[in-house]
């Protein structure tokens, strides 16, 4: 249900457009027009990084510029295409679906007289910002300019507070549409200097909350050391990690997902020959990886941006891709400190990360590591050889209990909160049954016959109905009508639990496979609950 709502919002980039226009008090459009008027003169060859819905793109194309516009969100690009087609400007714009970290692929289109970016840099991590600015140097024509319009932090505390409030809904919208979180570009002066640029001009708007920076490549070039090591990861338990664990145990499905900054980290004291392990940026994933290897081996850990989602789900959902890993590798500058060219990827991201693309485009070797981080030391000791036990997923009791708790955190809120509000009388029986059925199912799942969650729903329902009958007979005898209602309730709950908890098991397909049948079964149960009492005259 929540997924459906998100999907609905995601299809509405128009909302984003309107939201942004509104939240910047219409200043954004003015600034964009100003950039186009000043720099997008006829014949100018421009690159736009993160074109979004194409507002600035259209302004530039209208004034005769030839624009290559890239964005990593397909929904945004679709909206940009509609806008540009509507204004008859498509012939002057080439829209490309790509991540900004891939812009070095644009050498065929380069050189550009102008590279612009509006509200895109604030969605990137600092290493990505630095990497992309450096890459822009190689794409610019000799007298070329980079123009960046983005959020900054006002110097006045009152403006800072007001702007902070206003940014909240904007951040939510951006997150829904692109799964990116934004951070004002407060350190732009240092950023541009490090990437090898001089400031040409800066324009400030909304009390300093929006800024337009115009920069040009400096003669001195970019700073020397390319490798960016973000820090050393250690296996430590702190109050913060405990709180995150607690949140993740019950509400892992609900954003914001705890995540860490993507980039290159060390574990132990690795040298140039130490292995490079790649993972996603879900905080729990990184911490479990570090827990498994810290003290046992020295390694480099390259954290790619998986939108704070675990590697398997992120790869399946298109949030962790070969492009993200290539981008992370480029940004880290790992090739300047490592003597080898071999990366170890988690086996469970192979469903969405094209290993051959990484091999082709980076020249690095891609090795699919074990499923579980705890097997990494043994895997490396054996010279990157996996046993079948390391290769295959299992779903032991501990994992089943963890996952059922995770799932219950979400469904518990979804089902029990409305019941507590509208149907208080059945709250305790409903909560007890939901917990009982779910944990029973989680514990006995391997022995309940049935290939998938729907098939397992049949034996599970028989067991729960028998349990309910025994309870009613022995402990709490009630009228046939009351028993009928209880039975229907426990039946619905058993089927729902079994069908939905399919999604928590790595050994079964996604629970979405059952949604249609769940709907049909709910309809039939509804019909029974209405027909049977009428026929038997229980009302």
């Amino acid at each position, binding site marked *: 249900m929540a997924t459906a709502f998100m999907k609905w919002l995601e299809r509405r980039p128009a909302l984003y457009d309107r939201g942004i226009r509104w939240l910047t008090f219409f200043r954004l459009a003015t600034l964009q027009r100003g950039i186009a008027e000043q720099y997008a003169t006829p014949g100018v060859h421009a690159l736009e990084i993160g074109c979004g819905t194409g507002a600035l793109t259209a302004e530039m194309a209208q004034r005769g510029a030839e624009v290559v516009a890239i964005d990593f969100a397909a929904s945004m690009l679709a909206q940009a295409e509609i806008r540009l087609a509507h204004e008859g400007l498509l012939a002057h714009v080439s829209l490309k679906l790509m991540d900004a970290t891939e812009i070095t692929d644009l050498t065929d289109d380069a050189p550009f007289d102008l590279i612009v970016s509006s509200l895109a840099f604030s969605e990137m991590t600092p290493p990505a910002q630095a990497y992309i600015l450096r890459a822009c140097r190689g794409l610019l024509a000799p007298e070329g300019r980079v123009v960046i319009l983005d959020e900054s932090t006002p110097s006045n505390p009152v403006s800072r507070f007001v702007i902070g409030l206003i940014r909240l809904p904007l951040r939510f919208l951006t997150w829904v549409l692109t799964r990116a979180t934004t951070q004002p570009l407060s350190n732009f002066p240092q950023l541009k200097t490090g990437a090898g640029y001089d400031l040409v001009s800066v324009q400030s708007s909304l009390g300093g909350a929006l800024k337009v920076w115009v920069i040009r490549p400096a003669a001195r070039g970019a700073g020397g050391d390319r490798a960016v090591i973000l820090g050393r990861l250690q296996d430590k338990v702190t109050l913060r990690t405990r709180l995150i664990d607690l949140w993740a145990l019950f509400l892992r499905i609900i954003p914001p997902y705890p995540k860490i900054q993507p980039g290159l980290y060390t574990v132990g004291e690795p040298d140039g020959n130490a292995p490079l392990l790649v993972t996603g940026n879900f905080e729990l994933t990184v911490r479990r990886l570090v827990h498994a290897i810290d003290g046992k081996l020295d390694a480099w850990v390259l954290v790619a941006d998986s939108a704070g989602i675990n590697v398997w789900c992120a790869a399946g959902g298109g949030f962790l891709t070969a492009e993200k890993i290539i981008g992370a590798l480029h940004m880290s500058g790992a090739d300047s400190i490592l003597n080898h060219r071999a990366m170890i990827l988690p086996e469970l991201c192979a469903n969405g990360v094209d290993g051959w693309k990484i091999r082709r485009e980076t020249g690095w070797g891609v090795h699919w590591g074990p*499923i579980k981080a705890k097997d990494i030391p043994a895997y490396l000791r054996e010279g990157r050889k996996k046993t079948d036990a390391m290769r295959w997923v299992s779903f032991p009791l501990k994992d089943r209990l963890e996952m059922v708790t995770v799932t219950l955190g979400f469904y518990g809120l979804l089902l029990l909160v409305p019941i507590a509000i509208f149907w208080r009388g059945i709250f305790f029986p409903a909560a007890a049954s939901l917990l009982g059925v779910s944990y029973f199912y989680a514990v006995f799942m391997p022995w309940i016959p049935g290939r998938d969650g729907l098939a397992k729903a049949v034996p599970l329902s028989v067991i729960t109905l028998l349990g309910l009958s025994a309870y009613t007979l022995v402990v709490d005898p009630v009228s046939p009508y009351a028993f009928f209602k209880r039975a229907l309730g426990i039946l619905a709950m058993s089927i729902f639990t079994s069908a939905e908890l399919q999604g928590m098991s790595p050994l079964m*397909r996604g629970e979405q*496979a059952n949604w249609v049948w769940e709907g049909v079964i709910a309809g039939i149960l509804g019909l029974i609950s209405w027909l049977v009492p009428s026929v038997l005259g229980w009302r």
Partner: protein
Amino acid sequence: MSGAPPLKSLLQEHWELAQTLRHLQIHFDAERCKGVGQCYEVCPVGCWAPDPARQKVVFHDGERCIACGACVLQCPEDAIVLE
């Protein structure tokens, strides 16, 4: 500006996703297989087994397949299709 997608198309999308997820099956073209073995490397449920003598892999357990698509993506010979 375009409006919200009608509820019908959203339901249809979920219906199709559900149908696809239920019915997806591996189709393996053994002719194309050169025995690279990436499918075996990445299959988390053990559907594939290497056959070094013939320089091929063997698809031996479709029942376990969870339709994750890893083997399809990693096969350099396009010998595996999931549909």
